């Protein structure tokens, strides 16, 4: 992660140095995720595109852009502009603003007239979204409307139906209803952003008159960063876990010196309140599925004592991993990442000590380390960094922390066994393996976008694409859920294969790291073979495309009996399996169909 592109960034610096920043990012040796992004503008989009590119590159996404002709966002959609069609976007961003409103009430309009205007204005957009969604089946990001910088009706502009602010709020509300009902449609909240930045500055008319920018140029980095966080969320690139220090991070003071009674926490005093609010904020994040961990330079008993403080909203049970020792924090954080089976780039490290932050930043450049300084700013800085922006929050996210706990219980249980097979047998595992069902489309797409380790091809799918595959008879698709006596792991495996004549080509095979080494992959393969036999498929082709993260499955196909038939210089391999030669691999899991 490039420091200049982390919040809070120096906007002027980014605008000024955008070309050399771009050059530096592109010179990195990374396996880029290429995405085709269409920007449909109702006003100038040039710098928005340029600076969005920087934030996306920093996240590992290499964008190929399409820009509509100036202002022609609506026409290009409704009249099926051929250049746009040929572009085949992976994602569409509609950059409109209040300047694109054609119907605005005046003081002489009646209530009915205004309602009609609202309908017409809304339909103008809805028609466009439906058309895009039917044609491209890809995520659509749409700006909501920002408020005007002047209010003809003064304070009544917001409460009176003749007010433009009131009208914009009502229009936005209709946008949100659409968003709530359509999974692949995302609102970019520039109403909030312009308010955060400062509406007067954001709407400095000079930029509209001179360059037809709907916002001031210095606000563009903030805008682009905000937009990039939605795009990162859609592709599962946001953060999933936090590692927290304790002293002066979760409470005021140093517990080793001040003792449990001496730390500042709780409702009586300002400092205590600030830390309590921060703890509550973290607790809310945990409920959304963010994994909390501790890495503190303290004796373990002091750490636990602090977390058991009567005014502490967070307790030891809220954390997946608690490390309190005197070792270097970067080593500890690496250990935590392994324990919770997440990449370092999924972690955020929060520590009030700049020296500790610097060590982690230097040694673990993939970990996000925000510059927090004053307790009263912690929440704002973490929030505005948009680390945990979510495209989808599924039930699995909400249950994630319980699942970690169950996993640790399983590890304890394993210690009772001398044979691993005996352990697996006694887990009493039950799996359900079936073709894709609508209630699981979200979770399947989420897994596709987030799973990197046990992932043979790292092909990404949107919810819409999952739905299409589920309805297409030329595909064999399977999901797998797994539970055992300790708990339910939820949906953790996905296979997608395309049937061409009497051969199956596996486009996707992934499994969540939660269920490694339980034989689930064998159970899924057995089931895949059943499906192949039903459809008279003779051969299965498997493909492995190496990435920085999926080395563990490099020889997976060999381990289940495939023969390697092709390999190229980049390490991409193709494998073949004769369906007839299969014998059952799964011994320990009871499978429900």
């Amino acid at each position: 992660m490039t420091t200049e592109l982390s919040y809070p960034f120096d906007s002027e610096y980014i605008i000024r140095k955008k070309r050399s920043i771009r050059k530096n990012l592109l010179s990195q040796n990374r396996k880029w995720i290429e995405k085709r992004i269409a920007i449909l503008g109702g006003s100038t989009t040039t710098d928005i595109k340029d600076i969005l590119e920087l934030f996306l590159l920093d996240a590992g996404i290499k964008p190929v852009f399409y820009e509509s002709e100036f202002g022609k966002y609506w026409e290009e959609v409704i009249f099926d502009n051929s250049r746009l069609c040929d572009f085949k976007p992976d994602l569409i961003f509609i950059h409109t603003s209040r300047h694109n409103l054609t119907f605005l009430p005046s003081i002489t309009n009646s209530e009915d007239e205004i309602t009609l205007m609202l309908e017409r204005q809304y339909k103008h957009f809805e028609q466009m979204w439906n058309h895009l969604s039917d044609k491209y089946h890809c995520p659509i990001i749409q700006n909501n409307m920002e408020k005007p910088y002047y209010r003809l009706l003064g304070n009544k502009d917001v409460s009176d139906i003749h007010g433009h602010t009131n009208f914009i709020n009502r229009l936005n509300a209709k946008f949100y209803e659409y968003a709530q009902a359509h999974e692949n449609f995302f609102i970019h909240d520039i109403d909030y952003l312009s308010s955060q930045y400062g509406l007067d500055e954001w709407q400095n008319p000079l930029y509209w008159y001179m360059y037809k920018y709907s916002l001031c140029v210095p606000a563009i980095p903030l805008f682009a960063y905000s937009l990039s966080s939605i795009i990162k969320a859609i592709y599962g690139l946001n953060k999933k876990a936090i590692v927290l220090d304790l002293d002066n991070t979760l409470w005021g003071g140093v517990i080793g010196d001040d003792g449990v009674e001496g730390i500042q926490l709780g409702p009586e005093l300002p400092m205590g309140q600030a830390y309590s609010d921060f703890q509550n904020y973290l607790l809310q994040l945990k409920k959304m599925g963010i994994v909390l961990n501790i890495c503190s330079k303290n004796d373990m008993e002091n750490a636990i004592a602090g977390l058991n403080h009567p005014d502490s909203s967070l307790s030891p049970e809220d954390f997946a991993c608690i490390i309190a020792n005197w070792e270097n924090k970067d080593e500890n954080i690496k250990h935590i990442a392994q324990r919770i089976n997440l990449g370092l780039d999924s972690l955020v490290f929060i520590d009030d000590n700049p020296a500790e932050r610097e060590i982690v930043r230097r040694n673990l450049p993939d970990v996000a380390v925000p510059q927090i300084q004053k307790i009263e700013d912690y929440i704002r800085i973490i929030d505005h960094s948009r680390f945990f922006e979510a495209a989808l929050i599924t039930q699995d996210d909400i249950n994630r922390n319980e699942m970690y706990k169950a996993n640790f219980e399983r590890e304890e249980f394993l210690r009772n066994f001398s044979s691993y097979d005996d352990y697996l047998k006694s887990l009493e595992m039950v799996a359900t393996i079936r073709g894709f069902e609508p209630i699981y489309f979200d979770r399947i797409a989420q897994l596709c976008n987030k799973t990197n380790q046990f992932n043979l091809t790292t092909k990404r799918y949107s919810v819409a694409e999952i739905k299409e595959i589920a309805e297409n008879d030329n595909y064999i698709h399977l999901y797998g859920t797994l539970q055992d006596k300790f708990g339910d792991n939820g949906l953790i495996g996905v296979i997608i294969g395309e049937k061409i004549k009497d051969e199956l080509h596996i486009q996707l095979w992934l499994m969540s790291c939660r269920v490694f080494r339980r034989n689930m992959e064998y159970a899924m393969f057995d089931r895949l073979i059943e499906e192949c036999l039903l459809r008279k498929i003779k051969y299965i082709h498997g493909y492995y495309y190496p990435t920085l993260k999926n080395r563990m499955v490099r020889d997976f196909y060999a381990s289940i009996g495939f023969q390697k038939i092709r390999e190229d210089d980049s390490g991409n391999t193709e494998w073949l399996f004769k369906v007839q030669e299969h014998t059952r691999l799964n011994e320990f899991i009871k499978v429900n169909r």
Partner: protein
Amino acid sequence: MNRIEILEKINHILKDVFDDDSLVVTESTELSDIEGWDSIAQITIIATIEKEFNVRFRLEDILETKSINKLIDFIEKELK
């Protein structure tokens, strides 16, 4: 700040914006002569100059400053 110092700073800004260390402008350079200059580059330059010198352009100022020496005139005036 005198005119030479202002020119120096503007030169530095232009080097960054165009990512070209060899770029050199003089008082007599017309903005449209600069290789790669367009209206979008102009906004970047305006925004950067505002921050660098702590000055504010009005609409008419932007419309009137089409050359380096006019730009320096404007900045000099604002700094007084």
